[in-house]
């Protein structure tokens, strides 16, 4: 990879100042996607701003009816969090399904959603739970965050500080794992709240999306039968060497039914 300047700020404000002062700089969380990208020379930032030294960005805690996860909390820490397992077991399980143990020791929730890989697991969890992404500047609803392929609502230099998850009645995440990369060929997150059901899908489209027809049906009647007749359109889904769009559409339906059946 090309060389770069390296910065390790210990305060969010210092990191933001560095990012704003240099538009060719890149923020680094766990580096599980960024470092391979640099190695392939698909990116060559002038500077890396490493967020690992900022203690305020780490940890999982409960705040009333919400679980707050710091942006630099690793997948392993999220997976093992006793507070989270008690409040949102489905989300703790999702974190344990990402990559492999070594990747889970480095990769972070903030890095994953800022990168918005179409096959990443967290986007489905964040969207499904109707979470709020907190940055150093504002709060962004998950519904307004994922805009497209590797595209989010984040502005240049804006730093995710944490994610707030409303505690649901119940949730689960089911995925068809790509056997080599560990990414989701398709992943489906189903969340029951007091007011209704949310269904979010990752891996299938350019970015995570919700399945309105399934949400409506499951809100009326939470059963496998109620979503059996709902067709998933393959039109805008991903079509690649690993899976055709039609296959992905089929798997969305299979995983959704499997998720409901696991209740």
């Amino acid at each position, binding site marked *: *990879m*090309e*060389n*770069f*300047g*390296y910065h*390790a700020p210990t305060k969010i404000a210092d990191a933001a100042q560095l990012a704003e002062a240099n538009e060719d700089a890149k923020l680094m969380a766990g*580096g*599980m996607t960024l*470092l*391979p990208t*640099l*190695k392939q020379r698909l990116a060559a930032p002038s500077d*890396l701003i*490493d967020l*690992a030294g900022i203690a305020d960005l780490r940890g999982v805690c409960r705040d009333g009816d919400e679980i707050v996860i710091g942006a630099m909390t690793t997948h*392993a820490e999220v997976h093992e969090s006793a507070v989270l397992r008690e409040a949102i077991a489905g989300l703790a399980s999702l974190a344990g399904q990402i*990559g*492999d*143990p*070594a*990747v889970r*020791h*480095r990769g972070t929730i903030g890095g994953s959603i800022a990168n918005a890989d179409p096959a990443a697991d967290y986007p489905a969890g964040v969207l499904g739970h109707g979470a709020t992404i907190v940055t150093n500047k504002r709060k962004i609803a998950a519904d307004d965050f994922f805009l497209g392929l590797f595209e989010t609502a984040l502005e240049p230099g804006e730093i995710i500080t944490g994610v707030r998850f409303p505690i649901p009645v119940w949730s689960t995440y089911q995925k068809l794992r790509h056997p*080599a*990369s*560990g990414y989701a060929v398709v992943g489906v997150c189903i969340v029951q709240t007091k007011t209704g059901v949310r269904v979010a899908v990752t891996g299938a489209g350019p970015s995570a999306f919700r399945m309105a027809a399934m949400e409506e049906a499951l809100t009326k009647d939470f059963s496998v039968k109620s979503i059996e007749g709902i067709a998933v359109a393959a039109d805008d889904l991903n079509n690649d060497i690993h899976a055709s769009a039609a296959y992905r559409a089929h798997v969305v339906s299979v995983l959704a039914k499997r998720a409901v059946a696991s209740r």
Partner: protein
Amino acid sequence: MLIEVNMTVNGRAVSGKVEARALLVDFIRDHLRLTGTHVGCDTTQCGCCTVHVDGKAVKSCTMLAVQAKGKNVVTIEGLASADGTLHPVQEAFREHHGLQCGFCTPGMVMMGVDICRRHPNADEKTVRHELEGNICRCTGYQGIVEAIMDASAKMAGGRA
């Protein structure tokens, strides 16, 4: 521009000057001459470069040396006791023939130790799931899985 890095490797305080882009595995192999840590795929998939950073298994091909500043790093060379007594996971690999060509073995053993610490008395399903990030092209994994299960039981029983 070179950056000064200090860390503890296998209990020894070490330092060196590296470029920001230098990988941790390159620092370990080229600067410290600890060549037990291997580079297989160089793309975070095969696990041959697995080392422990602050007690956790990570792939040292996907971490910068500067990110390990001030950390406690353990490589395969740091597992056995000073008198040459093998770590229980190393011993189990020998007993169960958990290797053939040996190229993936340092990473397998380092991941094995991490698995044993997190999963006392690990069952076969757990070990196979936890080994998803470590690839072996010789053994078919059977001996490796048996070795880690055995070491996990022995370590949980306090023999280690």
